[in-house]
C-alpha cells in the first residue's frame, strides 16, 4: 500500500515537472500575478485621493533629520507644496514614507516552497500569495505600505519575488506594476533539513507532498555543490543538469536579475561569497545573523544585507543555530554594507518594531527609518518609493510623533495615493 502511494507521488511529481514549461516565466511580467483579478478593475487605476498635510514635520526616509513643511498628494504623487483637496492639520504630527518589507513572508495561502524539486527558479511567489490575507491589512495599518513577497526557504532555489502594495481600496493587497522580480536562494540548513527530515520515508504518516523521495541536497556541502553546478552550467563551463532551465541563472550572471541569498551562519556567508567569486555574480545577503564575524569581508564588497529580525535569544536561535549579536546591523553598516531591516516571518506589522529596536542597538532614529524605507526601496527597484520627495509615489504615513518612537500613534496611511486608514477625523 505504501509502495503504491509512493509510486503515485512519483507520477504526480513527474507530471507537475512536465507541466512547468520553460517559457512560462517569460510570460510572467505581463501577468504580474493578476489571474485572480481577471475581469475586475485594477485597484491601481481607481481615483486617488487629494490631500494636503499642513505644518507637518517631514522625515523624508533618506536619513536626514526632520524638517517642517507642507506636503500635498495629487494623482498618486507627492508634491512638496500646498495643494488642493482635504487639509490635514494635526499639531505635532510627523509625515514619513510608508515602510517597505523587503522580505515578506506572510500572507501565503499554503506551503511556501515547491519542495517537489530542489531548485525551482521558475516558480513565482505571485501564484502563492493570498492578497486578501488580513496580514497585509495588519501590515498597512502599522505603517508598512509595501511588501515584497519572497518564496519559502525550504528549497535551494526558491523562485521569484513579487512586490505588493500592502493594502488597497478593494480590501486586498495589489501587485506593483513593473517591479523587478529577484531570484531567491537559500543556503544553510533549511533546504537540506527538509530533505533529511523526510528521507528515507520512515514514518508512513508524513504527508507525501513534502516527502517524495531522495531529494538532494542533504548537507551544506550538497547545497553549495548544486548551486555551483547550475551557475557553471549557465556560464557554459559545464553541461547543464537534466531538464534544467538556466534562463534566470544567466540573467543573474548578466546582472539583469538580482539574486538574494539567505545565508545566516558564518559558513553560509562564506560559501555564498566563494560561489559569487567563482561564477562571477553579485548577490544580496538575507539574514546574515553572523555577518558581524565577517564584517570586513562583507564590507569590502559593499554588500547589501537584509538584516533581521532581531532574535529573542541571541545564541542558537533559528534553524541554523546562529550566534547573533544585537548590534549586528550597526556593525555591518559601519563596515560598509548597505543595511535593510526586515521583520521576516513576523510580517510587515512588526517592521516598525525592528526599526525602533535598531535605535536601541546603534542606529539613529532617522537612519533606522531609512533602513525601513528608501534603502529597501532602492534594493527592490522601487526607486520612486520609500521617500518623501517631489514626484515620489504617494506611500505616506502620518504619525503623532517620530515613527521610530513607540509612543507615537499612527494617524493616517496612504498607499499609492489611496487612503486606507484615517484616524484624523474627529471622534
Amino acid at each position, binding site marked *: 500500500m505504501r509502495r503504491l502511494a509512493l509510486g503515485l507521488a512519483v507520477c504526480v511529481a513527474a507530471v507537475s515537472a512536465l507541466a512547468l514549461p520553460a517559457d512560462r516565466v517569460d510570460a510572467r511580467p505581463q501577468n504580474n500575478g493578476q489571474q485572480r483579478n481577471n475581469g475586475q478593475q485594477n485597484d491601481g487605476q481607481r481615483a486617488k485621493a487629494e490631500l494636503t498635510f499642513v505644518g507637518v514635520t517631514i522625515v523624508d526616509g533618506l536619513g536626514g533629520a526632520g524638517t517642517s513643511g507642507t506636503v500635498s498628494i495629487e494623482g498618486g504623487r507627492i508634491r512638496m507644496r500646498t495643494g488642493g483637496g482635504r487639509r490635514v492639520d494635526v499639531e505635532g504630527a510627523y509625515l514619513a514614507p510608508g515602510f517597505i518589507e523587503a522580505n515578506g513572508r506572510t500572507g501565503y495561502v499554503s506551503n511556501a516552497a515547491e519542495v517537489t524539486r530542489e531548485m525551482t527558479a521558475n516558480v513565482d511567489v505571485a501564484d502563492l500569495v493570498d492578497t486578501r490575507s488580513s496580514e497585509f491589512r495588519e501590515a498597512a495599518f502599522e505603517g508598512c505600505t509595501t511588501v515584497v513577497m519572497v518564496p519559502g526557504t525550504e528549497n535551494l532555489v526558491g523562485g521569484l519575488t513579487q512586490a505588493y502594495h500592502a493594502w488597497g481600496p478593494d480590501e486586498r493587497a495589489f501587485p506593483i506594476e513593473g517591479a523587478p522580480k529577484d531570484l531567491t536562494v537559500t543556503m544553510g540548513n533549511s533546504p537540506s533539513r527538509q530533505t533529511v527530515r523526510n528521507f528515507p520515508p520512515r514514518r508512513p504518516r508524513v504527508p507525501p507532498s513534502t516527502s517524495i523521495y531522495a531529494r538532494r541536497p542533504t548537507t551544506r556541502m550538497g547545497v553549495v555543490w548544486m548551486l555551483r553546478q547550475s551557475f557553471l552550467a549557465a556560464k557554459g563551463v559545464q553541461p547543464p543538469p537534466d531538464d534544467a532551465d538556466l534562463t534566470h541563472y544567466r540573467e543573474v550572471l548578466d546582472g539583469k536579475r538580482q539574486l538574494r541569498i539567505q545565508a545566516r551562519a558564518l559558513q553560509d556567508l562564506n560559501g555564498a561569497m566563494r560561489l559569487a567569486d567563482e561564477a562571477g555574480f553579485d548577490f544580496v545577503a538575507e539574514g546574515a545573523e553572523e555577518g558581524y564575524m565577517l564584517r570586513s569581508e562583507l564590507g569590502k564588497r559593499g554588500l547589501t544585507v537584509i538584516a533581521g529580525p532581531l532574535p529573542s535569544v541571541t545564541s542558537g536561535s533559528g534553524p541554523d543555530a546562529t*550566534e547573533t549579536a544585537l548590534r549586528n546591523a550597526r556593525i555591518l553598516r559601519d563596515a560598509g554594507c548597505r543595511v535593510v531591516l526586515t521583520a521576516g516571518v513576523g510580517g510587515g506589522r512588526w517592521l516598525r518594531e525592528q526599526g525602533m529596536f535598531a535605535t536601541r542597538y546603534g542606529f539613529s532614529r532617522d537612519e533606522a527609518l531609512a533602513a525601513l524605507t528608501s534603502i529597501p526601496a532602492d534594493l527592490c527597484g522601487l526607486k520612486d518609493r520609500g521617500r518623501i520627495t517631489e514626484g515620489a509615489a504617494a506611500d505616506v504615513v502620518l504619525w503623532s510623533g517620530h515613527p521610530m518612537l513607540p509612543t507615537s500613534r499612527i494617524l493616517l496611511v496612504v498607499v499609492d495615493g489611496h487612503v486606507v486608514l484615517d484616524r484624523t477625523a474627529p471622534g
Partner: protein
Amino acid sequence: MKTLRFPWVVLALAAVAVITVAPTASRAADGEYVIQAGTVVTIDGDILTEGGSVFVSGGRIEDVQPGYVNPWGATVQKHETAWLMPGLVEAHSQGGLWRGTNERAPDTPFVSVLDGLDPLNDYFTDLLRDGVTTVFVVPGDQTLLGGQGMVIKPVGRTAEEMIVRRDAGLKIALAPRRGTSRMAQLAELRRALTLARGAEALEVTSDPDDPARSARQVAMSALLEGRLPAVMTCVAPVDVVNAFAIMDEFGLTGFIRLGSKSRRALPLLAERGVPCILPDDIEPLETDAETGKSERRYLAAECKAAGVPVVIQANEASGYGMRSLWYQAAVAVSQGLTRAEALRAVSLAPARVLGVEDRVGSITKGKDANLVLWSGDPLDPASHVDLAWIEGDAVYDRTKDRKLVRLLDGVAGSRPAEGR
C-alpha cells in the same frame, strides 16, 4: 634606584588608604548617599525636569528635593543627562521558576513559588537590565487552585532573601482546564472552598502556625480569612462575572488577571472597584463575529476609558527589551494614556494591586530605595538602564554587565580581532 622604589610604594599605599578611608569617615559609612539626576520621575509627585536630588539612608528614601542640592551633607553622585525613576514593578510573571509553572493536579493551594524559584535564573538579571526591581512571581493559569505567588526583588542568593511579600496571592483559574467545562470548573472550586470552610471547625487547632494543621488548610484558611488575596485569572468576560460571584459567596479579597478576550468585562470591574492586571498583549486582535474581520483592540486605552486603574505587565513573548515593561508603557502612551499615567501603570499602580505600595512603586520618603538610572527618557528605545539600586544597594551597573557586551556584539565582541 632600586632602593628608592620602596618608600614610593609605601607612600602610594598610604595615599590609597587615605582616599578609601576618607569617605567612610563621613556619613557614607551608614549607607547614606545622594543621587542627583537631570530628570527625576517620582511617580507620586511632579516630574522634576530641572534636576532632582534623592537622599538615601539605611536602604530607604529619606528625602527628595528639586535641583542639585545636598542639605544632608552626604556623598553625592551626579548624573546630569540621566533620568532617575523608581524601579518598575512587574505585576504578573512566571519568570525565574525552574521547570514548570502549573501543577497537574487541579487542587494545589499549598504549593508556593518559594519552592520553585531559581535565584540564579537569567530572568532576574534581564529584569534589572529593563529597570524592574520588583516582580510578582505566581504559578500559571492551568490549575484550578494553582498555588501561592510571592512579590520578590530580583536579587538574592536564596528565594527567602528575595521576598518582599510572602503571601501575595493564591492563583485561581476560572477558565476551564482542557477537557472540563466552565460549570465543572466552578463546581470544583465551590466544593474546595466549601470543604475548607467546613474543615476549619474540624481542624485539631485554630492556631495558623501550628504544625499539626494541614498545609492545604493553612492556605485555604488564609484565603478565606482574607490574609491571602485571590489572584483570579479570567479568560472570557463570563469568568469575571463568576469571579465576583465566588468572591461574594466566600468573602474572598483579591484581584483579577484579565485575558485578552475579557476586555468587555472592564465596565464590570469599574463598577465593582476590583483591581485588575491587563493581559500581556495590550493590543490583541479580535475577530468580529459578524464581519469576520480582525480588529486590533487597545486595552490600555479601553481600561482608562472604563475608569479602571491601568496595570500593565510585560509581554511574555518579550526578548531583550522588546515588549518589556518600559516598552509596554510606551505603547500605552501611543494608545492615548498620558506619560504620567503610563509610567504609573508599570510602577505605583501594580504596587498598589499587589499590596506593596508602602514599600515600592515610587520615589517617596520612607519607601525602599529601589532606584533606576536611565541614560535618557525610559520610553525611548534608545535609552538604557545604566545603574540600579535595590534597598539602597547597587545591584546593576551597565559598564560591568559582561553578558550585555556579548549580547550586543556577539561572540566576537569580546575578542580582540574578528572571530572566524
